[in-house]
């Protein structure tokens, strides 16, 4: 039997800290606050359409990633450099994040979600608004680019 969709409160309490941490490292504290609210408002709008309560962590991280990508796209459109956060006290998997600062947004999102957060390519595809294959490709392109930079 499928896992039931939990009350939104339960879902929100379970994932708010991780989502905020994810956004803060990607956007810096100030922009993370707006993105945080937008992430959970989007989740709330989509919530009645969920058919089961599985993979909700991946689901909300994909929403957050999509918002980060939208912001990056918007600031590129405005000719602004994307602001990249530099914060200390990262957990181990986030050691990946500073390395990926120089990657194009899509590759960066794919690499961080895959290797930092352990999401599947199907979920990352969702996050990027594309396919599983495109997500796999973005992640491997990102990793290749990182290797090249390391040399």
């Amino acid at each position: 039997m499928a896992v039931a969709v939990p009350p939104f409160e339960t879902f929100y309490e379970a994932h708010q800290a991780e989502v905020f941490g994810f956004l803060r490292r990607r956007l810096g504290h100030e922009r993370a606050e707006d993105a945080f609210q937008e992430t959970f408002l989007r989740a709330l709008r989509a919530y009645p359409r969920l058919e089961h309560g599985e993979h909700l962590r991946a689901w909300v991280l994909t929403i957050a990633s999509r918002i980060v990508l939208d912001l990056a796209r918007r600031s590129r459109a405005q000719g602004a450099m994307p602001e990249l956060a530099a914060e200390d006290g990262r957990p181990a998997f986030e050691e990946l994040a500073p390395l990926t600062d120089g990657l194009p947004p899509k590759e960066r999102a794919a690499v961080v979600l895959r290797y930092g957060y352990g999401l599947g390519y199907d979920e990352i595809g969702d996050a990027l608004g594309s396919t599983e294959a495109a997500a796999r490709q973005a992640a491997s392109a990102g990793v290749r680019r990182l290797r090249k930079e390391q040399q």
Partner: protein
Amino acid sequence: MTETLSPALDERFRAAAAAEGLLDVAYDLLPDTPIGSLLLGVTDHGVCRITFDPEPERELEELARLFGPRVLRSSRPLDRVRLELDEYFAGRRRHFEVEPDVRLLPAYNRRVLAELAQVEYGHTTTYGTLAAQSGNPRAARAVGTVMHHNPVPIVLPCHRVVGANGKLTGYAGGLGRKEQLLRLEGAIL
């Protein structure tokens, strides 16, 4: 990993969720009323839930099952009912203006609760009287069951319903609370 989310940001989201009309139920806890801790829930249609000594986890599951999964603690939508309850407990309010949301109850329960709503502050009625007013004088026991499952006690004053012999009989929140409410209203000494 512990990330600190500021309480201000948390509250901001909770307020925005309610302001955008995205919640099936907004709820909050009143930890310190004269009759103990209460959980209050409201929908767009009114007050849908008042629970004594709530076990939040179970309450949330129940509210989600009945009204939809978007159940979130959010203080502002509760302002009105919170204020009216404060006034009531302080003896400054005899009549609630907030609407109870009883849409989802069976027709019979709604009929009985509509009669109950007419019982005035400081007065009592009996299960039998209420049964007669609801169409079946022999249904006193059924009325008792409706009272027991009243989703919004206090606002819908089931504490004002007593046995034919004047005994308090029963109350979902415990007889002590029933007595306390009736004393507050001056219905008993």
